[in-house]
């Protein structure tokens, strides 16, 4: 049957999911037209990245009925993007990806509003990210994922029983592809592992020994890394190489070609140069499409509850045959980014020195010789001597003053814990709450927002 008069055929398939009850739905699912309308009106989704995955994500999310989308990306369109970043045309080369992608999707999907942000993710205030209900990641770097993850987790608050407060949870859906492989994962901070809990899932970047590059190059990648890491410094003394500057990249490419000719090594191309320098494996349009589809569907499931979500990490491998696997990773309960940390209540008069002594007596910590850092300020450092001297005068000051008189916040400490005779060093997150200060409720911060 057709949908209601107000909704033309475009949402007919979506309606089957949203308007009817089912057996495999999420716990809070309430089917009906109100749900469909609310999704359009109230769900605010941020897409991070407007490259190969980002283009797909914007299109998929718009076609899934989301109407309030924003996209952030710092890159401009290059000719080499056009084969898979299908929202871009030759005449768009040089324009910001976020702006063109937003415009093209709005032209094709009526009723959707996409706000582009042409800037680095770090340029936005932390609060910018808090305005979104779900953050969807279409990125190709670990650094950028780690940053967004730490921002999203910083909104998370725990109650006094170390349970995450639902209204502070900022879910993320993360997609990634490399050639014929890809992954899609759902991160619900405080509930499922965050990016930092499982950072070991990302293989470390292959780094060739510098002396191999200097002396005995054997592959095209060796020649490119020689030009990038050694030759660049030799010629441009002091000037930093910028991987996002096409002129720099062209220079490295031409030097790599010379190097390859000298050693009779084939295979240096411009796109390989970009790939090696930026550690990117060439993207394949269809892999992007598959991963994006999975991510968009998970986003819809999180928002609507129309089905249980992926739990919690999907890997797709199309290299030999086709393998898809879903793995349920577990949280690191002591994760510095998403974990609750240890709750500590203090009087406002407690000095830093007294605080450090308290950590040693605290039954859950027993942390001796603590160094203390708060929001990037090193309050006390046990070593090296140069830092110990610079921070020593803080010891006699009240911790409350050192923490800018906030009623409750997260602080990190490093020290040694000793059980029996075995001393191990550890880094711990603490939720410090000052007693008797206005604004303190029984709920405590988790992430330091």
């Amino acid at each position, binding site marked *: 049957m057709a949908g209601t008069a107000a909704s033309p055929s475009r949402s007919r398939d979506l309606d089957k999911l949203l308007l009817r009850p089912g057996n495999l739905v999420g716990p809070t699912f309430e089917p009906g037209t109100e749900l469909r309308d609310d999704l359009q009106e109230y769900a605010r989704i941020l897409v991070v990245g407007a490259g190969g995955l980002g283009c797909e994500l914007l299109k998929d999310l718009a076609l899934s009925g989301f109407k309030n989308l924003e996209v952030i990306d710092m890159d401009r369109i290059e000719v080499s993007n056009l084969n898979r970043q299908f929202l871009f045309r030759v005449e768009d080369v040089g324009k910001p990806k976020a702006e063109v992608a937003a415009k093209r999707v709005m032209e094709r999907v009526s009723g959707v509003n996409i706000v582009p942000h042409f800037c680095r993710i770090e340029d936005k205030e932390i609060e910018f990210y808090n305005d979104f209900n779900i953050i969807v990641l279409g990125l190709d770097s670990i650094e950028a994922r780690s940053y967004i993850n730490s921002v999203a987790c910083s909104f998370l608050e725990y109650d006094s029983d170390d349970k995450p407060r639902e209204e502070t949870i900022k879910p993320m859906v993360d997609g990634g592809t490399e050639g014929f492989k890809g992954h899609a994962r759902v991160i619900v901070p405080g509930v499922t592992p965050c990016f930092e809990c499982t950072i070991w899932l990302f293989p470390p970047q292959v780094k060739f020994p510098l002396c191999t590059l200097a002396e005995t190059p054997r592959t095209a990648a060796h020649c490119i890394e020689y030009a990038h890491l050694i030759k660049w410094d030799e010629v441009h003394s002091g000037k930093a190489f910028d991987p996002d500057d096409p002129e720099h990249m062209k220079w490295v490419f031409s030097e790599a070609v010379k190097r390859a000719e000298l050693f009779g090594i084939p295979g240096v191309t411009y796109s390989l140069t970009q790939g090696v320098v930026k550690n990117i494996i060439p993207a394949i349009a269809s892999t992007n499409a598959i991963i994006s589809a999975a991510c968009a569907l998970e986003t819809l499931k999180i928002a609507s509850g129309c089905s249980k979500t992926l739990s919690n990490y999907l890997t797709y491998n199309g290299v030999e045959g086709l393998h898809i696997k879903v793995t349920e990773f577990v949280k690191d309960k002591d994760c510095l980014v998403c974990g609750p940390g240890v709750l500590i209540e203090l009087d406002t008069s407690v000095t830093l020195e007294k605080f450090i002594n308290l950590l040693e007596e605290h039954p859950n910590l027993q942390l001796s010789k603590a160094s203390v*850092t708060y929001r990037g300020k090193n309050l006390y450092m*046990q070593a090296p001597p140069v830092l110990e001297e610079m921070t020593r005068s803080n010891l006699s000051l009240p911790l409350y003053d050192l923490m800018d008189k906030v009623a409750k916040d997260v602080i990190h400490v490093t020290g040694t814990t000793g059980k029996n005779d075995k001393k191990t060093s550890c880094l711990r997150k603490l939720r410090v709450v000052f007693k008797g200060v206005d604004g303190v409720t029984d709920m405590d911060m988790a992430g330091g927002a």
Partner: protein
Amino acid sequence: MIKLFKVKEKQREIAENANGKTPVKKQSAGELRLHKDISELNLPKTCSITFPNGKDDLMNFEVSIRPDEGYYLGGTFVFTFQVSPIYPHEAPKVKCKTKVYHPNIDLEGNVCLNILREDWKPVLNINTIIYGLFHLFTQPNYEDPLNHEAAAVLRDNPKLFESNVRRAMAGGYVGQTFFIRCI
């Protein structure tokens, strides 16, 4: 979660009229791990560390090494460390600021030390790297050359290598290259 989103959207509209929050500095997981590494540093007396940007920027620092034996006895060699926000997933970037005549360090300050590149593991730390750098001065090796000429001299004529090192450290020319005094 749409019910929650709806509530939040209402709150957001109210909050927009209220005063904005103060900007918050974020501390990356890499910064926290580095805080641990630095607060546990245990350096030999031949090495010292400084923080040019003050006590709150641990991500950029300098390490001075003064070898107490071997060819480089008496010299002072300064290394700059740049640590990434995803440390220790990625090794710090280390460069030698002092121009040095050394088989494993080139004239631009690139250092050939396995744990800085191909053999880096997240279980290693800043202390390990500093010890590794220290070893380069007590045991320079000609098998992993970055300065090809210095490596060849060390291999074929250790006596000449020794006098070249002394001349470079005292401030002077070795071949066509001028070295600034570092003793």
